[in-house]
């Protein structure tokens, strides 16, 4: 088991290097305006994701449980989720510029993970539940999707200010399409956040006898849900699309990050391990 944890440790640092290399190649793609560089960056990112998956599997087997139960594990899983969702969006919408903006966020997250304790601790009884996997993995996808909507919001806001219109017109979808892709990522995030909240409630009911306790993490998950619900309603009611929606997507991710890091730092509660 210790061997597997050592392998995970080695893989973790290789993954950081690969994500860093992918970021550099994405930046080179923007600087050199060569499509081949973008492909290379995406391939490096995909290899990084594969090794990251292998690292998580090693940790899971080495620890004898799902690797999603402390700050280190959630941060590295969050980076994995953002990497996965961003690659899906890059492939689905043939939009490699996403990678140039997602890669620094992924690096920040994995860097945050690197600063956390990697010690494998035994799980307290309440965490020994089959709901753990559903609850945390859906949170990872939700946060990853909101991360992509944040990246798309930034790309939208930068698109107008870019001097080289030719490159941006060729590699970044038109405003309307960009807005719709961002909307899609918010939809994916909101759907998975709802699954996270519902599965969390079912689990809390079994573990603590109360499916909703207004714990800070619960409350801020609800706040995040409400923020994106407002986003969806404003799109319909006030036709808040384009720039306004992009700003909202960026602000929404700030709320996601507060739910993840801010709550644990400033508002301790029964989710203190998450």
């Amino acid at each position: 088991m210790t061997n597997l944890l050592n392998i995970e440790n080695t893989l973790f640092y290789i993954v950081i290097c690969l994500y860093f290399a992918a970021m550099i190649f994405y930046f080179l793609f923007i600087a050199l305006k060569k499509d081949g560089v973008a492909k290379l960056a995406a391939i490096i990112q995909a290899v990084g994701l594969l090794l990251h998956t292998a690292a998580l599997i090693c940790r899971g087997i080495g620890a004898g449980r799902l690797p999603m139960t402390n700050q280190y594990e959630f941060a590295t899983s969050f980076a994995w989720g953002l990497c996965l969702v961003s690659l899906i969006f890059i492939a689905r919408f043939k939009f490699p510029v996403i990678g140039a903006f997602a890669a620094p966020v992924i690096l920040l997250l994995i860097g945050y993970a690197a600063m956390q304790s990697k010690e494998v601790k035994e799980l307290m009884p309440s965490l020994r539940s089959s709901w753990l996997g559903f609850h945390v993995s859906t949170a990872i996808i939700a946060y990853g999707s909101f991360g992509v909507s944040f990246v798309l919001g930034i790309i939208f806001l930068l698109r107008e200010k870019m001097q080289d219109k030719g490159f941006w017109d060729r590699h970044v979808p038109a405003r309307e399409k960009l807005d719709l892709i961002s909307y899609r990522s918010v939809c994916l995030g909101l759907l998975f956040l709802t699954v996270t909240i519902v599965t969390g409630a079912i689990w809390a009911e079994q573990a603590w006898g109360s499916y909703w306790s207004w714990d800070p993490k619960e409350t801020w998950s609800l706040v995040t849900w409400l923020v994106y619900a407002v986003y969806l309603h404003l799109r319909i009611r006030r036709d808040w699309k384009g720039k306004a929606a992009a700003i909202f997507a960026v602000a929404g991710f700030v709320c996601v990050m507060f739910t993840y890091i801010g709550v644990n730092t400033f508002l301790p509660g029964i989710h203190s391990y998450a």
Partner: protein
Amino acid sequence: MKKVWKFLGSMQFAIILLVVLILACAGGSFIPQGHSYEQYAELYSERTAGLILGLGLDDVFHAWWFLLITAFLCGNLLLCNLIRLPQLLRRSKQADDPAHLGAPCVELEGIRDPEPIFARLHMPKARETTDEAGRPLRISVQNRVGLWGAWACHLGILLLILGFALGQMTKEEYTVYGVPGEIKQIGETSYFVKIHDFRVDRSESGFVEQYTTSLTVIDNADENDPMSVDAVASVNHPGSAFGFKLYQNSMGDAAKLTVRKDGKLLQESWACAGDSVPILETPLSLRLQSVLREEAEEERNPTGYAYMIFVGEEFYTMNVQGPGESIPELGPNYEVSFSEAQSYTLLQIKRDRFTPLAFAGGLVTLLGLLLAFYLQVRKLWAVQNEDGTWTIRGSSPKGGALYADRVKEAAASS
């Protein structure tokens, strides 16, 4: 009056309520809840403390104004769904009506055969009709059920809030604790819990993996014919009996308290840590604080018992009793001692009939979101021109330019 009702069920009002809820929830998480005036005054200032208590910010999630916002949100969701129901039924019925196709987001002309494009986009069988000019018209509507997504989502949230609110108002909640062998009443009900066994499972390294209590719930409503149900409660696996759910909540130290006066047994009972046990024929009560153990020693082999003595409500003294010793503070006539250290189990017992309603609400919300986001209504229609070619148009209220791309790609590859 009609205007008021319309506003109460409007999206504008919904957005206002959602924003207020966001602010209230954020405030409720930042301001420590349930503190006293003195604690708030120490944390902030006397003026702020007064403001917090005056506005109910010390218990935001149960404050009258928070409940009022939630009630307004329920009203808004209900009115919104009632107003939209006939519209949705009409839209669902008219989805493939040539007069209600809506504005297209894509238009392709000069198509020889529209069928491969319809097939490539997995459109259902097209309705064949004619347009107002009498030209052949084929209309296909995909994901008609998606129209109901937002409606189902609103219904789900309404059920969830109702289930939660009704649960809060009607739920019964009790705490029972004791050691194996004891029988404890559940609150003031006719039900009793007999604790058979309490087990702490540990890993090889001594870390606690699970707490398990085996018990029997006895319904003593009819004393001549009591009914009983056996149950096992462990963390994440609550037991159930007579509509109650029994949760393994906590545990702690317990010991048998024996009091002898002039050699005669005066009382013998179990004392759980934190409990004050009145000593008969005296104004004193004795509280077991904890059982002291050395790490290497077995659980049932304590090195001492920490206790406190109270005179009435007033603290008198505290001390540690070693194994086999007597507590000296009660005087030479008394022989008082703790023994047989073990763990007590604390069970939380609940009966909330509306939990299933709240969970059903959550699932309906999820289903609604799934319909709204991933089964979006898409229309594709083809009208035959005089030269025999077809003009294809498509619309997708939520897909817009992305759907237009898909239609163009399908046309290019057909």
